[in-house]
Protein backbone atom coordinates (compact mmCIF):
# COMPACT_ATOMS: atom_id res chain seq x y z
CA UNK A 1 0.00 0.00 0.00
CA UNK A 2 1.26 3.43 -0.87
CA UNK A 3 2.49 5.47 2.06
CA UNK A 4 2.47 2.58 4.55
CA UNK A 5 5.27 1.12 6.64
CA UNK A 6 4.06 -1.17 9.41
CA UNK A 7 5.45 -4.00 11.49
CA UNK A 8 8.11 -6.45 10.38
CA UNK A 9 8.93 -7.32 6.78
CA UNK A 10 10.27 -10.31 4.91
CA UNK A 11 11.98 -8.18 2.29
CA UNK A 12 12.79 -4.48 2.34
CA UNK A 13 13.76 -3.04 -1.05
CA UNK A 14 15.80 0.15 -1.07
CA UNK A 15 14.97 2.25 -4.12
CA UNK A 16 11.68 2.56 -6.00
CA UNK A 17 12.94 2.69 -9.56
CA UNK A 18 12.46 -0.12 -12.06
CA UNK A 19 14.99 -2.30 -10.20
CA UNK A 20 13.31 -1.82 -6.84
CA UNK A 21 9.81 -2.42 -8.19
CA UNK A 22 11.03 -5.50 -10.07
CA UNK A 23 12.68 -6.86 -6.94
CA UNK A 24 9.52 -6.30 -4.90
CA UNK A 25 7.46 -8.22 -7.46
CA UNK A 26 10.06 -10.99 -7.54
CA UNK A 27 9.91 -11.26 -3.77
CA UNK A 28 6.12 -11.53 -3.86
CA UNK A 29 6.38 -14.19 -6.61
CA UNK A 30 8.64 -16.22 -4.35
CA UNK A 31 5.86 -16.31 -1.78
CA UNK A 32 7.08 -13.66 0.64
CA UNK A 33 4.09 -11.91 2.16
CA UNK A 34 5.50 -8.74 3.60
CA UNK A 35 7.46 -6.62 1.16
CA UNK A 36 8.31 -2.92 1.52
CA UNK A 37 9.86 -0.49 -0.96
CA UNK A 38 11.58 2.59 0.42
CA UNK A 39 12.05 5.33 -2.17
CA UNK A 40 13.76 8.67 -1.67
CA UNK A 41 11.81 10.50 -4.37
CA UNK A 42 8.25 11.86 -4.11
CA UNK A 43 7.02 9.60 -6.97
CA UNK A 44 8.14 5.99 -7.47
CA UNK A 45 9.64 5.17 -10.86
CA UNK A 46 13.15 6.49 -10.49
CA UNK A 47 14.89 7.92 -13.51
CA UNK A 48 12.20 6.47 -15.82
CA UNK A 49 9.91 9.37 -14.96
CA UNK A 50 12.18 11.81 -16.76
CA UNK A 51 12.96 9.47 -19.68
CA UNK A 52 9.97 10.43 -21.78
CA UNK A 53 11.34 8.91 -24.99
CA UNK A 54 10.19 5.50 -26.16
CA UNK A 55 12.24 2.34 -26.32
CA UNK A 56 11.31 0.68 -23.05
CA UNK A 57 9.40 -2.51 -22.48
CA UNK A 58 9.86 -4.39 -25.77
CA UNK A 59 11.16 -7.43 -23.91
CA UNK A 60 9.03 -7.29 -20.78
CA UNK A 61 5.70 -5.79 -21.85
CA UNK A 62 6.10 -6.82 -25.52
CA UNK A 63 5.31 -3.29 -26.60
CA UNK A 64 7.32 -0.14 -26.98
CA UNK A 65 6.68 2.20 -24.09
CA UNK A 66 8.10 5.45 -22.76
CA UNK A 67 9.79 5.68 -19.36
CA UNK A 68 6.81 7.13 -17.46
CA UNK A 69 4.45 4.51 -18.95
CA UNK A 70 6.80 1.68 -18.04
CA UNK A 71 7.09 3.03 -14.50
CA UNK A 72 3.38 3.51 -13.99
CA UNK A 73 2.45 0.10 -15.32
CA UNK A 74 5.00 -1.44 -13.03
CA UNK A 75 3.70 0.56 -10.11
CA UNK A 76 0.20 -0.76 -10.77
CA UNK A 77 1.56 -4.31 -10.51
CA UNK A 78 3.34 -3.41 -7.29
CA UNK A 79 0.11 -2.04 -5.82
CA UNK A 80 -1.84 -5.09 -7.06
CA UNK A 81 0.63 -7.33 -5.29
CA UNK A 82 0.01 -5.48 -2.01
CA UNK A 83 3.57 -4.32 -1.65
CA UNK A 84 4.01 -1.45 0.82
CA UNK A 85 5.72 1.58 -0.63
CA UNK A 86 6.97 4.64 1.23
CA UNK A 87 8.12 7.65 -0.79
CA UNK A 88 10.29 10.57 0.36
CA UNK A 89 12.23 8.09 2.46
CA UNK A 90 15.95 8.03 2.85
CA UNK A 91 17.77 4.98 4.18
CA UNK A 92 20.64 6.14 6.36
CA UNK A 93 21.97 2.75 7.36
CA UNK A 94 21.29 -0.91 8.03
CA UNK A 95 22.10 -2.79 11.20
CA UNK A 96 21.98 -6.53 11.69
CA UNK A 97 22.15 -8.99 14.53
CA UNK A 98 23.59 -12.49 14.76
CA UNK A 99 20.22 -14.09 13.97
CA UNK A 100 20.43 -12.56 10.50
CA UNK A 101 17.55 -10.18 11.09
CA UNK A 102 18.20 -6.67 9.85
CA UNK A 103 17.13 -3.20 10.89
CA UNK A 104 16.80 -0.63 8.13
CA UNK A 105 17.16 2.94 9.40
CA UNK A 106 14.86 5.16 7.45
CA UNK A 107 14.19 8.89 7.55
CA UNK A 108 10.73 10.04 6.57
CA UNK A 109 8.77 13.14 7.44
CA UNK A 110 5.80 11.14 8.76
CA UNK A 111 7.68 8.35 10.53
CA UNK A 112 10.71 10.35 11.68
CA UNK A 113 13.92 8.40 12.05
CA UNK A 114 12.73 4.85 12.52
CA UNK A 115 14.09 1.37 12.19
CA UNK A 116 12.15 -1.22 10.26
CA UNK A 117 12.88 -4.89 10.86
CA UNK A 118 13.32 -7.27 7.95
CA UNK A 119 14.76 -10.67 7.09
CA UNK A 120 16.35 -9.76 3.79
CA UNK A 121 17.19 -6.57 1.94
CA UNK A 122 17.49 -5.69 -1.74
CA UNK A 123 19.73 -2.77 -2.65
CA UNK A 124 18.48 -1.02 -5.78
CA UNK A 125 19.59 2.59 -5.43
CA UNK A 126 20.55 3.10 -9.06
CA UNK A 127 23.44 5.16 -10.30
CA UNK A 128 24.60 8.73 -10.62
CA UNK A 129 26.27 10.72 -13.37
CA UNK A 130 29.95 11.46 -13.61
CA UNK A 131 30.70 15.14 -13.20
CA UNK A 132 33.19 17.68 -14.45
CA UNK A 133 35.51 16.95 -11.54
CA UNK A 134 35.83 13.31 -12.55
CA UNK A 135 37.48 14.26 -15.84
CA UNK A 136 39.00 17.57 -14.71
CA UNK A 137 38.07 19.75 -17.69
CA UNK A 138 40.32 22.80 -17.45
CA UNK A 139 38.96 26.32 -17.48
CA UNK A 140 36.83 28.67 -15.44
CA UNK A 141 34.01 27.58 -13.16
CA UNK A 142 30.94 29.37 -14.42
CA UNK A 143 27.30 28.39 -14.12
CA UNK A 144 25.99 26.38 -17.07
CA UNK A 145 27.93 23.11 -16.80
CA UNK A 146 25.49 20.39 -15.84
CA UNK A 147 25.03 16.70 -16.28
CA UNK A 148 22.67 15.54 -18.99
CA UNK A 149 20.38 13.83 -16.49
CA UNK A 150 19.93 16.98 -14.44
CA UNK A 151 19.20 18.88 -17.65
CA UNK A 152 16.64 16.21 -18.51
CA UNK A 153 14.88 16.72 -15.21
CA UNK A 154 14.93 20.50 -15.64
CA UNK A 155 13.38 20.26 -19.10
CA UNK A 156 10.99 17.34 -18.77
CA UNK A 157 9.71 17.88 -15.23
CA UNK A 158 10.40 21.45 -14.16
CA UNK A 159 9.72 23.03 -17.56
CA UNK A 160 12.86 25.18 -17.72
CA UNK A 161 15.81 25.05 -20.10
CA UNK A 162 19.45 24.64 -19.02
CA UNK A 163 20.41 27.26 -21.64
CA UNK A 164 19.83 28.32 -25.20
CA UNK A 165 23.00 27.39 -27.05
CA UNK A 166 24.19 24.03 -25.86
CA UNK A 167 27.27 21.88 -26.40
CA UNK A 168 27.30 18.27 -25.22
CA UNK A 169 30.40 16.45 -24.02
CA UNK A 170 30.15 12.69 -24.24
CA UNK A 171 27.89 10.62 -26.45
CA UNK A 172 26.13 8.59 -23.79
CA UNK A 173 22.48 7.89 -24.53
CA UNK A 174 21.13 10.53 -22.13
CA UNK A 175 23.25 13.16 -23.87
CA UNK A 176 22.04 12.13 -27.31
CA UNK A 177 18.44 12.06 -26.19
CA UNK A 178 18.82 15.47 -24.60
CA UNK A 179 20.22 16.87 -27.86
CA UNK A 180 16.92 16.06 -29.54
CA UNK A 181 14.82 17.23 -26.60
CA UNK A 182 16.56 20.58 -26.53
CA UNK A 183 16.13 21.11 -30.26
CA UNK A 184 12.43 20.31 -29.93
CA UNK A 185 12.23 22.88 -27.13
CA UNK A 186 13.79 25.56 -29.29
CA UNK A 187 17.44 25.42 -28.21
CA UNK A 188 20.39 25.32 -30.53
CA UNK A 189 22.64 22.29 -30.01
CA UNK A 190 26.05 23.17 -31.42
CA UNK A 191 27.53 19.69 -31.33
CA UNK A 192 28.27 16.50 -29.43
CA UNK A 193 31.93 15.81 -28.61
CA UNK A 194 33.13 12.30 -27.86
CA UNK A 195 36.69 11.56 -26.79
CA UNK A 196 36.55 7.95 -28.02
CA UNK A 197 36.65 7.06 -31.72
CA UNK A 198 33.14 5.57 -31.43
CA UNK A 199 29.84 6.68 -29.94
CA UNK A 200 28.96 5.53 -26.45
CA UNK A 201 25.29 5.64 -27.25
CA UNK A 202 23.06 3.37 -29.28
CA UNK A 203 23.09 3.77 -33.06
CA UNK A 204 19.41 4.46 -33.06
CA UNK A 205 19.99 7.49 -30.87
CA UNK A 206 22.86 8.76 -33.01
CA UNK A 207 20.60 8.61 -36.07
CA UNK A 208 17.32 9.79 -34.60
CA UNK A 209 18.63 12.35 -32.10
CA UNK A 210 21.58 13.82 -33.98
CA UNK A 211 21.49 13.07 -37.70
CA UNK A 212 17.78 13.82 -38.02
CA UNK A 213 18.46 17.31 -36.66
CA UNK A 214 21.81 17.83 -38.35
CA UNK A 215 23.63 18.01 -35.02
CA UNK A 216 27.31 17.24 -35.62
CA UNK A 217 28.93 14.37 -33.69
CA UNK A 218 32.68 14.93 -33.35
CA UNK A 219 34.45 11.68 -32.48
CA UNK A 220 37.96 11.59 -30.97
CA UNK A 221 37.36 15.16 -29.82
CA UNK A 222 37.02 16.61 -26.36
CA UNK A 223 36.34 19.86 -24.54
CA UNK A 224 39.78 21.18 -23.65
CA UNK A 225 38.81 24.45 -21.95
CA UNK A 226 35.72 26.15 -20.56
CA UNK A 227 35.50 29.97 -20.79
CA UNK A 228 33.22 32.43 -19.03
CA UNK A 229 33.23 34.32 -15.75
CA UNK A 230 29.73 33.93 -14.35
CA UNK A 231 28.12 31.88 -17.08
CA UNK A 232 29.63 29.65 -19.78
CA UNK A 233 30.57 31.88 -22.74
CA UNK A 234 32.41 29.49 -24.98
CA UNK A 235 34.32 26.23 -25.04
CA UNK A 236 37.55 25.21 -26.70
CA UNK A 237 37.35 21.78 -28.29
CA UNK A 238 40.28 19.79 -29.60
CA UNK A 239 40.89 16.49 -31.37
CA UNK A 240 42.70 13.95 -29.20
CA UNK A 241 45.71 11.75 -29.96
CA UNK A 242 45.96 7.99 -29.29
CA UNK A 243 46.64 8.68 -25.61
CA UNK A 244 43.44 10.77 -25.53
CA UNK A 245 45.44 13.98 -24.97
CA UNK A 246 43.96 17.01 -26.75
CA UNK A 247 46.00 18.42 -29.61
CA UNK A 248 45.77 22.15 -28.90
CA UNK A 249 47.27 23.06 -32.27
CA UNK A 250 44.09 21.85 -33.91
CA UNK A 251 41.71 23.25 -31.27
CA UNK A 252 38.84 25.58 -32.09
CA UNK A 253 36.39 27.71 -30.08
CA UNK A 254 32.62 27.38 -30.01
CA UNK A 255 30.43 30.06 -28.42
CA UNK A 256 27.72 28.55 -26.22
CA UNK A 257 26.04 29.24 -22.89
CA UNK A 258 25.72 25.66 -21.67
CA UNK A 259 27.82 22.52 -21.53
CA UNK A 260 25.97 19.28 -20.91
CA UNK A 261 28.00 16.35 -19.61
CA UNK A 262 27.08 12.84 -20.68
CA UNK A 263 30.29 11.14 -19.65
CA UNK A 264 29.16 8.02 -17.91
CA UNK A 265 27.26 6.64 -14.96
CA UNK A 266 28.54 5.29 -11.67
CA UNK A 267 26.62 2.84 -9.46
CA UNK A 268 25.68 4.62 -6.25
CA UNK A 269 27.03 2.45 -3.48
CA UNK A 270 27.49 4.75 -0.50
CA UNK A 271 25.04 2.68 1.51
CA UNK A 272 26.60 -0.60 0.39
CA UNK A 273 30.03 0.68 1.39
CA UNK A 274 28.80 1.82 4.77
CA UNK A 275 27.68 -1.77 5.37
CA UNK A 276 31.13 -3.06 4.45
CA UNK A 277 29.84 -4.82 1.35
CA UNK A 278 32.60 -5.82 -1.04
CA UNK A 279 32.58 -3.93 -4.32
CA UNK A 280 33.88 -4.85 -7.75
CA UNK A 281 36.18 -2.08 -8.97
CA UNK A 282 35.29 -2.84 -12.59
CA UNK A 283 31.53 -2.44 -12.25
CA UNK A 284 31.54 -0.03 -9.31
CA UNK A 285 28.81 -2.24 -7.87
CA UNK A 286 28.79 -4.99 -5.24
CA UNK A 287 30.33 -8.38 -5.86
CA UNK A 288 27.49 -10.86 -6.10
CA UNK A 289 27.04 -14.60 -6.22
CA UNK A 290 24.68 -16.26 -8.63
CA UNK A 291 21.67 -15.42 -6.45
CA UNK A 292 22.64 -11.73 -6.68
CA UNK A 293 23.48 -11.80 -3.00
CA UNK A 294 26.24 -9.45 -1.86
CA UNK A 295 29.07 -10.29 0.52
CA UNK A 296 26.62 -9.54 3.35
CA UNK A 297 24.31 -12.54 3.88
CA UNK A 298 20.69 -11.75 3.12
CA UNK A 299 21.48 -8.53 1.29
CA UNK A 300 20.77 -8.76 -2.42
CA UNK A 301 21.19 -6.23 -5.20
CA UNK A 302 20.08 -5.51 -8.76
CA UNK A 303 19.77 -2.83 -11.41
CA UNK A 304 22.12 0.07 -11.98
CA UNK A 305 23.53 -0.06 -8.48
CA UNK A 306 24.93 -3.47 -9.38
CA UNK A 307 26.17 -2.54 -12.85
CA UNK A 308 25.03 0.12 -15.30
CA UNK A 309 22.52 -1.28 -17.78
CA UNK A 310 21.51 0.12 -21.13
CA UNK A 311 18.03 -1.38 -21.28
CA UNK A 312 15.45 -1.19 -18.52
CA UNK A 313 14.01 -4.52 -19.62
CA UNK A 314 17.22 -6.20 -18.52
CA UNK A 315 17.07 -4.32 -15.23
CA UNK A 316 13.62 -5.77 -14.74
CA UNK A 317 14.71 -9.30 -15.59
CA UNK A 318 17.65 -9.09 -13.18
CA UNK A 319 15.53 -7.51 -10.44
CA UNK A 320 12.77 -10.08 -10.58
CA UNK A 321 15.46 -12.67 -10.00
CA UNK A 322 17.12 -10.75 -7.15
CA UNK A 323 13.68 -10.33 -5.55
CA UNK A 324 12.96 -14.05 -5.92
CA UNK A 325 16.17 -15.00 -4.17
CA UNK A 326 15.70 -12.34 -1.47
CA UNK A 327 12.19 -13.68 -0.89
CA UNK A 328 13.44 -17.26 -0.69
CA UNK A 329 16.13 -16.19 1.74
CA UNK A 330 13.51 -14.57 3.95
CA UNK A 331 11.64 -17.88 3.94
CA UNK A 332 14.73 -19.71 5.12
CA UNK A 333 15.86 -21.21 1.84
CA UNK A 334 19.65 -21.45 1.69
CA UNK A 335 21.07 -22.29 -1.72
CA UNK A 336 24.36 -24.20 -1.91
CA UNK A 337 27.43 -22.00 -2.26
CA UNK A 338 28.64 -21.19 -5.75
CA UNK A 339 31.77 -23.12 -6.66
CA UNK A 340 32.72 -21.53 -9.98
CA UNK A 341 34.28 -18.10 -10.04
CA UNK A 342 34.00 -16.01 -13.22
CA UNK A 343 37.02 -14.16 -14.51
CA UNK A 344 36.79 -11.43 -17.17
CA UNK A 345 39.41 -12.19 -19.85
CA UNK A 346 40.23 -10.75 -23.25
CA UNK A 347 38.05 -7.76 -24.23
CA UNK A 348 35.70 -8.41 -21.33
CA UNK A 349 35.37 -5.36 -19.10
CA UNK A 350 33.34 -7.13 -16.45
CA UNK A 351 30.86 -9.88 -15.88
CA UNK A 352 27.97 -10.19 -13.44
CA UNK A 353 27.34 -12.28 -11.38
CA UNK A 354 30.81 -13.02 -10.11
CA UNK A 355 30.27 -16.72 -9.52
CA UNK A 356 28.03 -19.58 -10.64
CA UNK A 357 26.63 -22.80 -9.33
CA UNK A 358 25.89 -25.92 -11.39
CA UNK A 359 22.58 -26.08 -9.53
CA UNK A 360 20.62 -24.13 -12.16
CA UNK A 361 20.67 -22.12 -15.36
CA UNK A 362 22.32 -18.67 -15.29
CA UNK A 363 22.39 -15.58 -17.39
CA UNK A 364 25.78 -13.86 -17.40
CA UNK A 365 25.76 -10.14 -18.16
CA UNK A 366 28.93 -8.57 -19.46
CA UNK A 367 30.38 -5.64 -21.28
CA UNK A 368 33.26 -5.54 -23.75
CA UNK A 369 36.13 -3.08 -23.54
CA UNK A 370 36.24 -2.10 -27.21
CA UNK A 371 34.19 -2.72 -30.36
CA UNK A 372 35.00 -5.95 -32.22
CA UNK A 373 33.36 -7.67 -35.18
CA UNK A 374 32.85 -10.45 -35.94
CA UNK A 375 33.88 -12.26 -32.80
CA UNK A 376 33.42 -15.28 -30.63
CA UNK A 377 32.52 -15.40 -26.97
CA UNK A 378 34.27 -18.16 -25.05
CA UNK A 379 32.93 -19.38 -21.72
CA UNK A 380 36.10 -21.17 -20.71
CA UNK A 381 36.19 -24.35 -22.77
CA UNK A 382 32.54 -25.06 -22.08
CA UNK A 383 30.81 -23.01 -24.67
CA UNK A 384 31.45 -20.71 -27.60
CA UNK A 385 29.03 -18.26 -29.09
CA UNK A 386 29.43 -16.43 -32.37
CA UNK A 387 28.68 -12.74 -32.13
CA UNK A 388 28.30 -10.54 -35.21
CA UNK A 389 29.68 -7.63 -33.24
CA UNK A 390 30.22 -6.28 -29.74
CA UNK A 391 30.26 -2.60 -28.69
CA UNK A 392 30.79 -1.18 -25.20
CA UNK A 393 27.42 0.59 -25.39
CA UNK A 394 25.56 -2.71 -25.54
CA UNK A 395 25.49 -5.22 -22.74
CA UNK A 396 26.15 -8.82 -23.75
CA UNK A 397 24.07 -11.61 -22.27
CA UNK A 398 24.73 -15.27 -22.41
CA UNK A 399 22.86 -18.20 -20.90
CA UNK A 400 24.71 -21.09 -19.34
CA UNK A 401 22.91 -24.36 -18.72
CA UNK A 402 23.53 -26.44 -15.59
CA UNK A 403 24.54 -29.49 -17.68
CA UNK A 404 27.49 -27.52 -18.99
CA UNK A 405 28.59 -26.40 -15.55
CA UNK A 406 28.35 -29.90 -14.13
CA UNK A 407 31.05 -30.94 -16.57
CA UNK A 408 33.36 -28.20 -15.39
CA UNK A 409 36.13 -29.41 -13.09
CA UNK A 410 38.03 -26.19 -12.26
CA UNK A 411 37.13 -23.40 -9.91
CA UNK A 412 37.63 -20.40 -12.23
CA UNK A 413 35.88 -19.93 -15.52
CA UNK A 414 37.49 -17.39 -17.80
CA UNK A 415 35.39 -15.45 -20.28
CA UNK A 416 37.00 -14.09 -23.44
CA UNK A 417 35.81 -12.24 -26.48
CA UNK A 418 38.17 -13.00 -29.34
CA UNK A 419 38.16 -12.13 -33.02
CA UNK A 420 36.20 -14.83 -34.84
CA UNK A 421 39.29 -16.26 -36.57
CA UNK A 422 41.40 -16.68 -33.44
CA UNK A 423 41.14 -19.44 -30.91
CA UNK A 424 41.49 -19.23 -27.16
CA UNK A 425 44.53 -20.84 -25.62
Amino acid at each position, binding site marked *: MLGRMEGKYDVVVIGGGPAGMGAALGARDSGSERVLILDRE*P*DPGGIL*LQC*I*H*SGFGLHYFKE*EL*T*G*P*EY*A*ERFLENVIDQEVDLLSNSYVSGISYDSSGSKGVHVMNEKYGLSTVETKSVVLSMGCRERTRGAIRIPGTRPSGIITAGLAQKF*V*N*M*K*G*VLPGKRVAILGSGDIGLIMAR*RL*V*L*EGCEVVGVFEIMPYSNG*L*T*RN*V*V*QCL*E*DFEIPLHLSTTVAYIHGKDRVEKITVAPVDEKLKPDMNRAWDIPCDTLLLSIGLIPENELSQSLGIKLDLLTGGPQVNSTLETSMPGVFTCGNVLHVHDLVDFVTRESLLAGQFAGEWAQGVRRPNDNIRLLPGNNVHYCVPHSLSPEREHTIYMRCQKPM*KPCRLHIGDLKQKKL*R*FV*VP*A*EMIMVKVKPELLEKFRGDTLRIDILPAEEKTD
Partner: protein
Amino acid sequence: MLEMEQYTCTNCPMGCPLQLTHEGENILEVFDYQCNRGLKYAKQEFSDPRRSLSTTVAISHARWARLPVKVSAPIPKDRVIEAAREIHQLQIESPVKRGQVLMSNFLGEKDIEVVALRSMERIS
Protein backbone atom coordinates in the same frame (compact mmCIF):
# COMPACT_ATOMS: atom_id res chain seq x y z
CA MET B 1 18.72 9.00 -63.53
CA LEU B 2 20.22 6.61 -61.01
CA GLU B 3 20.75 8.08 -57.56
CA MET B 4 22.07 6.70 -54.29
CA GLU B 5 21.01 7.30 -50.68
CA GLN B 6 22.88 6.26 -47.55
CA TYR B 7 21.36 5.22 -44.25
CA THR B 8 22.52 3.86 -40.93
CA CYS B 9 20.32 1.01 -39.83
CA THR B 10 18.91 1.59 -36.34
CA ASN B 11 17.42 -1.83 -35.73
CA CYS B 12 20.30 -2.95 -33.57
CA PRO B 13 23.47 -1.42 -32.10
CA MET B 14 25.58 -2.77 -34.96
CA GLY B 15 24.44 0.22 -37.03
CA CYS B 16 25.08 -1.17 -40.51
CA PRO B 17 25.70 1.46 -43.16
CA LEU B 18 23.18 0.85 -45.93
CA GLN B 19 23.10 2.09 -49.51
CA LEU B 20 20.01 2.34 -51.61
CA THR B 21 19.90 3.11 -55.32
CA HIS B 22 16.79 4.53 -56.94
CA GLU B 23 15.49 6.21 -60.03
CA GLY B 24 13.03 8.83 -58.94
CA GLU B 25 10.68 7.10 -56.53
CA ASN B 26 11.61 3.64 -57.80
CA ILE B 27 13.90 1.66 -55.53
CA LEU B 28 16.43 -0.28 -57.59
CA GLU B 29 18.56 -2.05 -55.05
CA VAL B 30 19.67 -2.02 -51.38
CA PHE B 31 23.30 -2.87 -50.60
CA ASP B 32 25.30 -3.85 -47.54
CA TYR B 33 22.45 -4.96 -45.28
CA GLN B 34 23.32 -7.82 -42.96
CA CYS B 35 19.78 -8.99 -42.29
CA ASN B 36 16.26 -8.55 -43.58
CA ARG B 37 15.48 -5.91 -41.01
CA GLY B 38 18.15 -3.75 -42.65
CA LEU B 39 16.61 -4.23 -46.07
CA LYS B 40 13.19 -3.27 -44.76
CA TYR B 41 14.61 -0.31 -42.89
CA ALA B 42 16.31 1.16 -45.96
CA LYS B 43 13.14 0.86 -48.01
CA GLN B 44 11.03 2.48 -45.29
CA GLU B 45 13.55 5.29 -44.80
CA PHE B 46 13.45 5.98 -48.51
CA SER B 47 9.75 5.86 -49.12
CA ASP B 48 8.17 7.05 -45.88
CA PRO B 49 10.59 7.79 -43.03
CA ARG B 50 8.72 8.08 -39.73
CA ARG B 51 9.67 8.87 -36.18
CA SER B 52 8.01 8.53 -32.82
CA LEU B 53 7.69 11.73 -30.82
CA SER B 54 7.53 12.42 -27.11
CA THR B 55 7.57 15.85 -25.54
CA THR B 56 5.99 17.67 -22.60
CA VAL B 57 3.17 20.14 -22.12
CA ALA B 58 2.42 22.64 -19.38
CA ILE B 59 0.21 21.33 -16.59
CA SER B 60 -1.21 23.33 -13.74
CA HIS B 61 -1.95 22.29 -10.16
CA ALA B 62 0.28 19.24 -10.38
CA ARG B 63 3.46 18.16 -8.59
CA TRP B 64 5.52 18.88 -11.69
CA ALA B 65 5.36 21.78 -14.13
CA ARG B 66 5.30 19.54 -17.20
CA LEU B 67 3.26 16.55 -18.24
CA PRO B 68 5.02 14.11 -20.59
CA VAL B 69 3.04 13.18 -23.70
CA LYS B 70 3.58 11.16 -26.84
CA VAL B 71 2.15 10.88 -30.29
CA SER B 72 0.42 7.51 -30.48
CA ALA B 73 2.06 6.39 -33.74
CA PRO B 74 5.16 7.36 -35.71
CA ILE B 75 4.73 10.50 -37.77
CA PRO B 76 6.53 11.64 -40.93
CA LYS B 77 10.10 12.56 -40.08
CA ASP B 78 9.90 15.96 -41.72
CA ARG B 79 6.90 16.94 -39.60
CA VAL B 80 8.45 16.20 -36.19
CA ILE B 81 9.33 19.78 -35.32
CA GLU B 82 6.04 21.12 -36.58
CA ALA B 83 4.28 18.47 -34.47
CA ALA B 84 6.24 19.37 -31.34
CA ARG B 85 5.40 23.00 -31.91
CA GLU B 86 1.72 22.23 -32.11
CA ILE B 87 1.73 20.01 -29.02
CA HIS B 88 3.50 22.70 -27.01
CA GLN B 89 0.47 24.94 -27.37
CA LEU B 90 -1.45 22.66 -25.00
CA GLN B 91 -2.20 23.78 -21.45
CA ILE B 92 -3.43 20.93 -19.29
CA GLU B 93 -5.28 21.12 -16.00
CA SER B 94 -4.68 18.31 -13.49
CA PRO B 95 -5.74 15.60 -12.70
CA VAL B 96 -4.67 13.54 -15.68
CA LYS B 97 -4.72 9.78 -16.26
CA ARG B 98 -2.11 7.87 -18.18
CA GLY B 99 -3.31 7.25 -21.72
CA GLN B 100 -5.75 10.16 -21.60
CA VAL B 101 -6.18 11.57 -25.10
CA LEU B 102 -5.20 15.21 -25.22
CA MET B 103 -5.42 15.76 -29.00
CA SER B 104 -6.99 13.61 -31.69
CA ASN B 105 -6.78 13.69 -35.48
CA PHE B 106 -3.27 14.90 -34.89
CA LEU B 107 -1.57 16.38 -37.97
CA GLY B 108 -4.76 15.59 -39.82
CA GLU B 109 -4.13 11.83 -39.51
CA LYS B 110 -7.28 10.13 -38.37
CA ASP B 111 -5.83 7.51 -36.02
CA ILE B 112 -3.06 9.58 -34.51
CA GLU B 113 -3.55 11.02 -31.04
CA VAL B 114 -1.52 12.83 -28.44
CA VAL B 115 -1.75 11.00 -25.12
CA ALA B 116 -0.55 11.53 -21.56
CA LEU B 117 2.35 9.30 -20.51
CA ARG B 118 1.57 9.31 -16.82
CA SER B 119 -1.10 10.12 -14.34
CA MET B 120 -0.77 13.26 -12.28
CA GLU B 121 -2.96 14.03 -9.36
CA ARG B 122 -4.32 17.43 -8.52
CA ILE B 123 -2.34 19.42 -6.01
CA SER B 124 -3.62 22.79 -4.97
